[in-house]
């Protein structure tokens, strides 16, 4: 089981902006890392934009899952992991990260920031590669058991009616031309590892 990324996003009207992020893409090959990170950034924004305030979702694709919690204050915490990583641990971790974030950064700071320096998520990305490390945080988050996270088997299912993933990819500023071509080709040949 692996954690690939921790991200904090802010929702501005209908767009999501990544304020802080950390990645561990060491398990991807040298040539893949660039486009993997781009697609993760793209997915993160796309999913965060379509997660209503107060809601938790898990969105699967390939061998990855993006777990997101949209905090009512307008900030979202996201963890991208592989499918083996227990979702309950991911959501506990997101809760902890969001709580600490909101204490560390006053509202007026994160509402206006372009990016924020939040080194703690780098430490967490290392520490919580082993889900058992999250034992103590889960014990104090009993109320999480009562909430349910919606599970989506594909990223398509978070899109609004009429929205097409193809056009979102095409219009995205997070993806390079190469990645966009990659997506089109992989889709056409129905090959795996689209990393979306």
């Amino acid at each position: 089981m692996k954690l690939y990324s921790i991200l904090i996003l802010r929702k501005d009207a209908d767009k999501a902006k990544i304020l802080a992020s950390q990645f561990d893409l060491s398990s991807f090959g040298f040539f893949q890392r660039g486009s993997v990170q781009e697609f993760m950034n793209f997915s993160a924004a796309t999913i965060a934009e379509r997660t209503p305030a107060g809601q938790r979702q898990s969105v699967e694709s390939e061998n990855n899952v993006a777990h997101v919690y949209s905090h009512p204050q307008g900030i979202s915490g996201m963890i991208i992991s592989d499918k083996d990583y227990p979702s309950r641990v991911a959501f506990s971790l997101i809760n902890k990260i969001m709580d600490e974030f909101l204490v560390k950064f006053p509202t007026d700071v994160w509402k206006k920031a372009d990016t924020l320096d939040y080194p703690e998520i780098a430490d967490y990305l290392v520490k919580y590669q082993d889900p058992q490390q999250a034992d103590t945080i889960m014990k104090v988050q009993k109320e999480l058991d009562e909430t349910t996270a919606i599970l989506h088997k594909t990223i398509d299912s978070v899109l609004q009616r009429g929205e097409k993933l193809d056009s979102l990819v095409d219009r995205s500023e997070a993806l390079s031309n190469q990645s966009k071509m990659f997506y089109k080709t992989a889709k056409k040949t129905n090959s795996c590892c689209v990393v979306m």
Partner: protein
Amino acid sequence: MQLYQKLCKAITENEINTKKSDELGLLHIIPEAIELPLESQIYYPLIVVESKLGISKKDLSLLLKEAHNYYITVTKNNYHDLEQVTRVMILLKPDNYTAMNRRKELILSGHIDLKQELALIELIFTIPKHSKSSVAWYHRQWIYTHFNQLLHIDIANEFKLCTVTSAAYPRNYYSWTYRYWILKTYCINNIPLLEREYRDTRHWIETNISDYSGFQYLQQLMGLLKLDTEDIHMKWLDQLIIKYPGHESLWCHRRFCSHLMIHSPNYCHSQHEFISNILNDTFKDQSLSNTTDDIVLQKEFALRFGLWQTLLEKRNKINNEYATLYLTVAPIPDFLNIQE
């Protein structure tokens, strides 16, 4: 032939496979030539960046064809070209018996350096899918076996290679069996090393709980070590089963433990007690997953294990008072009296 020659040029001119940062990559798509650094553009559509070689999947099939077509024309005593073309063939596709065996001949006739061949295999394994190639792993084993007088084996490096490839390709059967071969051949009497491997493998499994091949290695270690801390091992397994409900690999390993520990005092009783607790949701709060599917699967695995355990106890002439617990999964109500 053009692409094949370009590949040979790329490998030779950039000394691929002589530097530690070497890596191969198979790419779904490659950038436009202009987007690449100038030094790489001469090899386009191959990509060379910082001593790493990228080949698009589309070009891979063409290269394989060109390499093979060249191979069949090379004369038997053109050792240089033979070495080069077989090297390219196994870099592109390690599951190639012909090329690998030709290279064994070249090694035996002194036309290939042993250390370079070992490094070549490590380069091949930088493509995750290729790190499960049984032909490549055996080639490595063959080199060490055949030249064990000449070569000094770096055990730590071999274990590291196994660890890296087990991470790169999950449930990497050949990586783990090679690891066991190293252990058996070079470390069998090194108790501290066996104990360290046991601890490290247990730690590995904690974040790779579905790695059946890793479990097999752990079980082989347990056989070699004659574990005297059985209850500590079972406590460890119990914790994993509690934390990660519904993982079949953990329950399979439990069966292995039963075979090993069935005659240990109190073992059987503690098994049924554990199952009973699972069925009663005693550990519900400790699990890291609470999805219904996992909980249901967990109970199913527990019942099946209980039934299997009961039959094992009967076979070993151990008295069993828990048989009734498993009637729900028994093939027939009278299962204990089936003559075997």
